[in-house]
C-alpha cells in the first residue's frame, strides 16, 4: 500500500549490561500515525534517540526512504534529510522569541535562505497551526508548559518534515490542551509524512494512532490497532493490566 518511511532493522543498543533495544525491527509507513507505547524502560525514547542520531546502536541500522542508512549520520544531517523530533522534556530556547524559533526551524543555515516574505508566510502559517499567533513576540522562557510543547511542535513542523517524531507530546497537559494536541496531530497527517508518537496516555493514543507498536524490554511485543492492543493478553499482562 504505502511506501516505508522508516525501516528499523535488527537494532541493538546497550547501556552497560542493560539492553535498551534488543534486536528490534519495525517498519513505519508514509501516511500513518504510529504510536509507540510500552512500560518505562521499554526502549521507546532510546529508539527515537537512535533514529535522530543521538545514540549510536551497537548493531542494526535504520533505513530512511528505503535507501539512506541513518545510523552513521550526524544529528544535523539526519534533521536536514527531513526527520524532526520533539523531545520528551519541552526543549525550547529560553532566550529567543516564539517567532525566532519558527524561523530557525523553517530555514536551516547560518544565513537565511528563504527571502523575507516567504519566511514571514511560513512563520504565520505555522503559528496559526499550533495556535501561538498571539504569543509570537514573547520569549519562550515565559511561556506556559503547554505553550512550550506546542512551540516545540511548531518549530519541528516549520521545516515540513517527512518524518515527525513526537516524544510524549501531551505529558503534563490539561485535558483541554490534550484535546487540542490530538486534533493538531491528526491535522498534521499527510500521505507523504510519517508521524511517530511515543506516549503513555492511552486515550490520547487511541484518538490519534493508526497503528500501535508495543515495546517491552527492547523488543516488539505487539503491533496492531489500539483496539487489538487492548485485547491482547500479553500486552495486558506487561502493561495495561497493572
Amino acid at each position: 500500500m504505502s511506501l516505508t518511511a522508516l525501516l528499523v532493522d535488527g537494532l541493538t543498543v546497550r547501556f552497560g549490561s542493560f539492553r535498551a533495544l534488543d534486536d528490534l525491527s519495525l517498519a513505519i509507513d508514509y501516511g500513518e500515525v504510529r504510536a509507540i507505547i510500552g512500560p518505562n524502560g521499554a526502549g521507546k525514547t532510546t529508539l527515537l534517540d537512535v533514529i535522530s542520531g543521538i545514540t549510536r546502536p551497537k548493531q542494526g541500522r535504520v533505513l530512511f526512504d528505503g535507501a539512506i542508512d541513518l545510523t552513521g549520520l550526524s544529528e544535523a544531517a539526519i534533521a536536514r534529510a527531513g526527520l524532526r523530533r520533539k523531545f520528551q522534556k519541552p526543549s525550547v530556547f529560553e532566550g529567543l522569541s516564539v517567532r525566532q524559533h519558527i524561523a530557525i526551524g523553517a530555514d536551516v543555515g547560518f544565513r537565511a535562505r528563504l527571502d523575507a516574505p516567504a519566511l514571514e508566510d511560513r512563520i504565520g502559517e505555522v503559528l496559526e497551526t499550533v495556535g501561538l499567533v498571539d504569543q509570537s513576540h514573547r520569549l519562550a522562557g515565559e511561556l506556559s508548559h503547554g505553550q512550550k510543547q506546542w512551540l516545540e511542535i511548531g518549530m519541528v513542523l516549520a521545516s515540513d518534515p517527512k518524518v515527525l517524531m513526537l516524544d510524549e507530546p501531551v505529558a503534563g497537559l490539561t485535558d483541554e490542551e490534550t484535546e487540542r494536541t490530538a486534533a493538531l496531530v491528526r491535522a498534521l497527517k499527510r500521505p507523504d509524512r510519517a508521524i511517530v508518537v511515543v506516549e503513555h496516555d492511552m486515550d490520547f493514543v487511541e484518538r490519534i494512532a493508526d497503528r500501535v507498536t508495543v515495546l517491552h524490554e527492547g523488543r516488539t511485543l505487539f503491533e496492531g490497532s489500539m483496539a487489538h492492543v487492548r485485547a491482547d493478553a500479553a500486552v495486558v499482562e506487561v502493561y495495561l493490566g497493572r
Partner: protein
Amino acid sequence: MNRFGRITHTAPIVHLIALIVLAALLMAGLAGTEFALSRYLANAIGQLAAFAVLAISLDLIWGYLGILSLGHGLFFALGGYLMAMYLLKHSFEITGTVPDFLQFMGWKEFPFYWDGFEFFPYALAAAVVITTLISGLFGYVSFRSRVGGVYFAIITQALVYVAMLLMFRNDTGFGGNNGMTGFTVLFGWPMGTSGMITALAVASLLVLAGVLAGCNWLVRSRFGALMLATRDDETRLRTMGYETLRLKLIVWCLSALIAMLAGMLYVPQVGIINPRVLSPELSLEIAVWVAIGGRGHLVGAVIGALLVNAVKFWLSFAAPEIWPFILSGLIVLVVLVFPNGLMDLAKFKLVRPMGAKRLAADMGEARP
C-alpha cells in the same frame, strides 16, 4: 524590531558607542591644549579600553554561547607578545638598542623567527594567523569531542597555565621571565610622549567602539539568534539540522581574535609584557568583569571591565592588600544576589513594573 520580530532595545548600546566615540574625539581634540588630560589619566583610559575589548571577547563566547573560557589570557598574551616583538624589532631598527633579554642570554642577534617582525603588517598577520590556528585547533578538538561546561573551563585554564610555564623559560627567545620591555618607537614615532599616549588611548577607544558595534550587529543577526539557541539547548539545535560545531568554532575563533586585539592595544600602553599576563588569575579576572557587568549583555561586559579595573587602579595606590578581598566579595555578591550582574540592578528599576504586569497577565490566563 528586527527581522526576527524580536523587540530590540538598541538604545543603551547605541548610547554607549556614541559616548566612547565622543570621548575619543574629545581626547584627540583637546590634546596639547590646557584642557588635555594628564598623561596618567589618558594612559589609564587607554588601558581600560583595552580591558573592555577583552571583556567583550569573553562575553561573546560565555554570555552569548554559554562556553566559559578561563584561559582567555592566552589570546590576550598572544596579541601582546607579537605586538611587543614588533615594537622591539622596530625600535632596534631605528635606535640600534639591543633588547635586554638578548643581552641577558648573551645572544648577538634576534632568533630567526623574529625575522620580518619589524614590519607591522607582518606582525599583525602573524598574530591573526597564530591566534586563529591555536584557537581553531583547540576549539575543534574540544568541541568535536563535545567537551563543554566546567570541563572546557578547566582545560582552558590548564592551557593558559602551560603557556605561562613555557614563556617563563629563558631559552625560548621571547624574553623569558623578565618578559619584553624597553619599547622606544612605534610606527616611527617616539613612545612615552603625551602625544603618543593620547594617540594610543584614542585608538583604543575607537577600536572598542568598533568591536562593540560589530559584536552588536553579530548578536542581533540570525547568526546571533543561533548562538543563543546553542547556549540554551545545543542538542535541540543540532537535531534541527544545524552543525553547532562549526558555529561554536567560528565564534570561539572570533572571540580569540578580539582578545588578541585587546592584547595588541594593551602592551604599547603599559610598556611591558611578561608571562604573568598568562597567569590563571588574570584569566579568571576577565570572567569576573563579565559576571559583574552582566554576561550576555555587551554593555554589561564593558561596564564590568571599566568598573572593576577602575577600582583596581585606584586601590593599587590606596590599599593594594585589600584588593583580593574586594574582588572576592564582589564575586560572592554577584553569585548570591545578582546572577546577571549589574544588569539585574537595571532591571530592578526599569523592567520590574512591566514584569509584574506580565506576571499578572499570565496568572489571569491560567485561570479558567
